[in-house]
């Protein structure tokens, strides 16, 4: 790593709002940092909280979960479950010393391409500040 630290953020996006919002940022040619990679799921409610722990283990410096705004969930309630789960996951991670800012959750709708950019920029920036995550990263990762 020669110059500045380039963080690695893993993001879980719901298909209907946030993934569509990220697509919209693309069609609108909005530019944002390249350090965030997306795993598409159908609903933020699908994101198993253990994915977050696993992502940190596997080398992520930051994690983002993004879903529809409350009340907009394509499946009506999935984001409400996600909100409850990840609020606690957020508390738990901070409690054991994972820096605030490494774990993030956002609501980004299919029309919020610009917000998606802000979210990515913000999350990447925070991960950059926090530096490489090494608290409980695996030494050897196979896939």
């Amino acid at each position, binding site marked *: 790593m020669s110059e500045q630290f380039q963080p690695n953020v893993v993001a879980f996006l719901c298909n209907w709002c946030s993934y569509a919002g990220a697509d919209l940022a693309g069609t609108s040619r909005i530019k944002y940092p390249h350090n965030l990679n997306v795993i598409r799921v159908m609903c933020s409610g699908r994101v198993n*909280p*253990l994915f977050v*722990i*696993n992502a940190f*283990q596997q080398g992520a410096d930051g994690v983002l979960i993004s879903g529809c705004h*409350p*009340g907009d969930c394509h499946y009506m*309630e999935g984001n*409400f*479950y996600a*909100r*409850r*789960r*990840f*609020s*606690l*996951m*957020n*508390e*738990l*991670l*901070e*409690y*054991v*010393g*994972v*820096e*605030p800012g490494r774990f*993030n*959750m*956002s*609501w980004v709708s299919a029309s919020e391409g610009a917000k998606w950019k802000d*979210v990515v920029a*913000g*999350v990447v920036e925070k991960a950059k500040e926090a530096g490489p995550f090494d*608290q*409980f*990263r*695996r*030494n050897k990762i196979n896939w």
Partner: protein
Amino acid sequence: MVDLEKMRTIAKETVSRDDVRYLIGWRQGTYGFRVSPHFMKGPEEAEKLIFSPLCSNNLATYLTLTEKLPVPRGEQPDSRKIAVMVKGCDSRAVVQQLIEKGIERERVFVIGCPCEGVLDLKKVEEKFPGILSPVEVEWSGDKIIFTLPDGVKEVPKGEVLAKKCLSCRYPNPVMSDITLWDEVKSLGDGNYEDVKEMEEKNPQEKWSFWKDKFSSCIRCYSCRNVCPMCYCEDCVLDRLNPQWINRSANISENSAFQLARAFHLAGRCIECGECERVCPVDIPLMALNRKLAKEVREQYEFEPGLDPESKPFQSSYRPNDKEDFIL
């Protein structure tokens, strides 16, 4: 007041019932301060039953572990009740198991034992080291009376009680079919001072604390096995496909295991403290569990294991759940 005679009488009556398979209580362990679960199948075994500050085991754990052996063709599965003796905290485990359908109400007979607090054996063995012959211990107001080989000793409760008991709000069973004696006053207000203290620290301090603790984990899974809420027949945390957590014991896998374990108990942990009690390397597991219990209680006004009719925390939501952490 603890009334052993009454306890044994009721136990005899209970196991003699046609619809009761066996009774789970406590008996003197093999040495020193140890207490063992007592699986009592006939009235003649009642004399072995005890109830004392040593009875820390949460016997509710055994309810979900009942082995379901293959039933020979033409026979019916044994549908008799299992009777279990519970302290306040243990009763919450029973309630939570009912909420999660781990057990059925008509399959258990709950005998409530109001409890004035159990001992932290680590504190006790430090005070009275090297005792191998069985010891009798009793509550007496704000003291604990030890009948040791070299005489009777009185110790203030605060010095030897388990930490969870000092702030316990539920010393009396929240649910029982029969309660053995009068209810007792709760010792604490269930505050989360210890959790708050940890929250005050900066991330580096927090992690150096937990790194130290997690590194020592040997992944014996005792914490999980003793937990009354952990009764999946096939635990995801040591499953091979998919393999969430590798089996090697190192800081990465250990941390992931402990975080996942704590998270799975969010809104379910009834704070009996068994995980911490059985941990061979003294990881303060309750500090993790209690952090989540605190959030669940403070942010969501929810407490597990109180109302068998309530909806489980993890499978419910409120439209106005807090979301100040969301971008």
